[in-house]
């Protein structure tokens, strides 16, 4: 009889002491954020023949738009990876990125070490009004940025002034950034509110 009772109690005992073994894991393979159109002022080259430049910063506000259980926590339990980016040029029909010679996206905010996410150089093919680039650091966990105030993209690039629309001093584009997120917590961590 004692053995039977012990056999019945074992799972209960295991459950109580096993809070570190029991866990919950959420895996969001793709979440894409499409920002409102962003305008980037361009700086014409000071030396004839040199490329022009542009730059700007976009605060993604990820913490406000993705569920907190996915992105609100420590880097030990939460992972946020940048996967890809696309930029669509806002402009008249036929407008294209033909003038674009380079685009760089760096994740940065506060004191967190910046991470280069995209270094885009147009290929030899036809360039349309949308460019897409995959992450240079798909395994880099960006959760630390959120813990330090948020994740912002620093956008910078170069353009060919001969191909850039004459008289224009800015260009406007819609940026879509895609991320994956993963969270794994033990029951003990959930009880402790981590």
């Amino acid at each position, binding site marked *: 009889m004692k053995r039977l009772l012990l056999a*019945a109690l*074992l*799972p209960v005992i295991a459950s109580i002491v096993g809070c570190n073994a029991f866990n919950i894991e959420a895996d969001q393979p793709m979440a*894409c954020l499409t920002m409102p159109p962003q305008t980037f002022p361009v700086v014409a080259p000071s030396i004839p023949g040199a490329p022009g430049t542009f730059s700007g910063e976009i605060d993604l506000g990820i913490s406000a738009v993705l569920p907190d259980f996915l992105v609100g926590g420590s880097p030990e339990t939460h992972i946020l990876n940048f996967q890809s980016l696309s930029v669509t040029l806002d402009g008249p029909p036929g407008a294209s990125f033909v003038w674009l010679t380079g685009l760089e996206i760096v994740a940065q905010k506060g004191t967190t070490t910046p991470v280069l996410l995209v270094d885009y150089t147009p290929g030899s093919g036809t360039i349309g009004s949308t460019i897409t680039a995959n992450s240079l650091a798909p395994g880099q966990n960006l959760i630390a940025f959120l813990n330090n105030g948020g994740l912002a993209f620093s956008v910078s690039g170069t353009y060919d002034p001969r191909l850039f629309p004459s008289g224009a001093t800015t260009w406007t584009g819609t940026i879509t950034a895609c991320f994956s997120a993963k969270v794994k917590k033990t029951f003990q961590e959930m009880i402790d509110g981590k």
Partner: protein
Amino acid sequence: MRLLPVLLAALIAAPSLAVAQTATPQAATPQVATPETGAPQDPAPPAPRREEPYPQFGLQLAIGAPDGAVLSFTYSPLYWLLLDAGFAYTLAPGFVLGLEFRPIDFFISPIIRGEYGYYFAGNTANQVKKWAGIPEAQWPLIGDASYNWFSGLVGVALGSRRGFTFALEGGIGALSLNVKGGTGTINNVVVTTGDYKVTSFMPVARLSFLYFF
């Protein structure tokens, strides 16, 4: 490592099974004295006892986590083996399939059970949004949700294998919540989420009432 509690429970229960199988009591044959002689005389050989067959079909009501409430039909081809299939309802309708061993035909018997359950998409997603404290603006990002699980349980059953039994079981399980993605506009940002999955390795528990007929 995760199977350790189940294996331990099975090992501990095993000797009891052996005892139950070997210790079948022999019926004592009483010596009867005749009134004339006072000498003991062998009675007439008893009529061979006809063993009632074990009932094979039963109806079971169970409540538990993550089972919810389950009403199932049970089939027992052998007295120690039970198969059940039932309709379940918690946040949504679903079904539960079970394979159960009750190795001892006694008032109290150990149970070893394996189970698979599936809940269709119903009200699950709405409850998840509320329980997880997700702001209403983000609700469009969470579509329909269904879940399924596998579990292994051990426990005890009290009652008669030929009638009513009550069982209490506990164990471990692997649950998978499958959530459809969605699209919503939050703070002027259009957010599109793909389908995602929440899995959990968790304790499970079950309380059941079974009636064989």
